[in-house]
């Protein structure tokens, strides 16, 4: 650490004095490997922050890789990172048609939790939550993981029964979740309106204290930086336009907007566009793509210490570190790739927000946007093999994929690297829609989360 930092001072002098290309290259290499530490932060501050290197390389695609990941969102980048870190596969490319983290990774409401109903879901989301806890240290990049607590409101008897069932199921699985009275809920989130005369009064809440938020962009950037440092090529503005297959049916590579790239293994992690990419290999998917919206308000001083969600009246809110209130709305009724949702969907959510949090009624909304989410019939993801040899898919995270980013990448990396599903991913097969062994979180989990 000290050595590479010292090079920052001596480096330019060496370049000037010696004028040797090799020295420039060596300095360049040290710069790239610059780690984030208190010492380096001070060093860079003294140098007016002019010496920070690029965070990841932007190479031209090679002719051939051991494996290609289609899609440089959080899940795709995490997959590539864990393939390099856990399985030693570094001859890997992540191909992205737009820019890194510009899809749903940059459009979600950053909520993390693991309080799902079924054991299969609990296993994968809890695996993910445990990885979140150490992620900043693992990546040497601050993903701003904030376990501030996720509180899910109940508004009627049915809600209360379902929530308590979740609490009991979670505690049996060793996952924290607790039931709060309305007064306890208000103590945890003081701006909450618990009066009994509102349209949907609050009768209680389920609280997962380890749940919270993380900074979505930082997650994409952190994984990209760490994967790139291990040799993974991240190629942006490179749209996959076709999947080529050999005489035996196995994949041989992909056609892209920047030419053919060969690979014996392809992992599709394309979220809302998964159906489109899989169709290139002739595979029909049990997916439908819907626009899902979010909004942020103008920034205000800290007023909300946690995440609050209400599935029944379809609203959820938290406050970002910039001070904006981040609000999630629902999906549109119809399938679409438009990345915009109907105004009446967002309005419906804001009506609920204004009732639950009267203090925010006069706030203005700064931005409203949509992302395209890929929804499965049972609202659980698909992680694993496909009927095409060498082709793997990780999709169907629907309205709640952000929280799963590390866990999803971790188990999918295993699946692609070894050719067999990770034990945690094993239940989430594509084949379950034929066998009927569904993991039905549709009624059990939040509609949007």
């Amino acid at each position: 650490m000290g050595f590479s930092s010292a090079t920052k001072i001596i480096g330019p002098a060496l370049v000037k004095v010696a004028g040797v290309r090799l020295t420039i290259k060596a300095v360049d290499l040290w710069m790239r490997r610059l780690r984030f530490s208190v010492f380096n932060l001070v060093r860079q501050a003294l140098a007016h922050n002019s010496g920070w290197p690029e965070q990841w390389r932007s190479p031209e695609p090679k002719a051939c890789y051991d494996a290609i990941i289609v899609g440089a969102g959080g899940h795709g980048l995490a997959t590539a990172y864990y393939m390099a870190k856990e399985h030693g596969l570094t001859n890997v490319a992540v191909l992205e048609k737009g820019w890194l983290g510009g899809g749903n990774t940059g459009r979600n409401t950053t909520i993390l939790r693991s309080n799902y109903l079924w054991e299969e879901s609990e296993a994968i989301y809890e695996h993910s939550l445990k990885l979140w806890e150490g992620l900043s240290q693992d990546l040497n990049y601050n993903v701003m993981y904030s376990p501030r607590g996720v509180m899910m409101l109940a508004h009627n008897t049915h809600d209360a029964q379902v929530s308590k069932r979740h609490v009991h199921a979670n505690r049996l699985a060793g996952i924290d979740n607790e039931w709060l009275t309305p007064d306890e809920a208000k103590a945890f989130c003081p701006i909450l309106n618990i009066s009994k005369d509102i349209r949907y009064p609050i009768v209680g809440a389920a609280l997962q204290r380890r749940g919270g938020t993380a900074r979505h962009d930082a997650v994409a950037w952190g994984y990209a930086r760490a994967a790139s440092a291990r040799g993974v090529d991240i190629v942006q503005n490179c749209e996959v336009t076709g999947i080529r297959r050999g005489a035996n049916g196995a994949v041989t590579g992909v056609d892209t907007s920047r030419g053919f790239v060969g690979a014996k293994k392809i992992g599709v992690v394309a979220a809302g566009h998964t159906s489109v990419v899989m169709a290139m290999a002739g595979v029909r998917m049990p997916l439908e793509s819907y626009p899902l919206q979010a909004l942020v308000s103008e920034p205000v001083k800290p007023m909300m210490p946690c995440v609050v969600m209400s599935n029944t009246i379809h609203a959820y809110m938290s406050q970002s570190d910039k001070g904006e209130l981040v609000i999630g709305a629902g999906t549109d009724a119809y399938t679409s790739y438009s990345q915009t949702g109907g105004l009446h969907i967002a309005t419906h959510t804001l009506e609920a927000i204004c009732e639950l949090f009267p203090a925010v009624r006069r706030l203005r909304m700064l931005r409203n946007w949509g992302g395209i989410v890929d929804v499965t019939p049972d609202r659980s993801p698909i992680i694993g093999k496909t009927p095409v040899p060498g082709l793997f898919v990780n999709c169907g995270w629907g309205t709640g994929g952000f929280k799963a980013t590390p866990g999803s990448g971790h188990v999918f990396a295993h699946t692609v690297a070894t050719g067999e599903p990770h034990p945690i991913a094993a239940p989430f097969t594509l084949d379950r829609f034929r066998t009927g062994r569904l993991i039905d979180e549709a009624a059990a989990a939040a509609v949007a989360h």
Partner: protein
Amino acid sequence: MLLIRCPYCAMERPEVEFRHAGHAHIARDTGGDDRAWAEVLYLRDNPKGVVAERWRHVAGCARYFNCLRDTVSDRILKTYKAGEPMPDVAAPSAGASR
């Protein structure tokens, strides 16, 4: 919000009067094979382009009808009564084929 023309009421009405009812023209006669039944129940083309879908005019005549819509622009190309064959319409926008 979409403006949808109900072919029975012969009127353009706002989207909130309707319920979306999934893909249209799905043949449900499978002969009992698991794989074919999974196709009917779960597998979808989910196209980026023109989709044939069902809508129900719940706050109007309450009848089901079919609709061709471009999923990139959300523009509705044609609505037609249930049981009628799918109209032949050209791909509407350059974006639809991407």
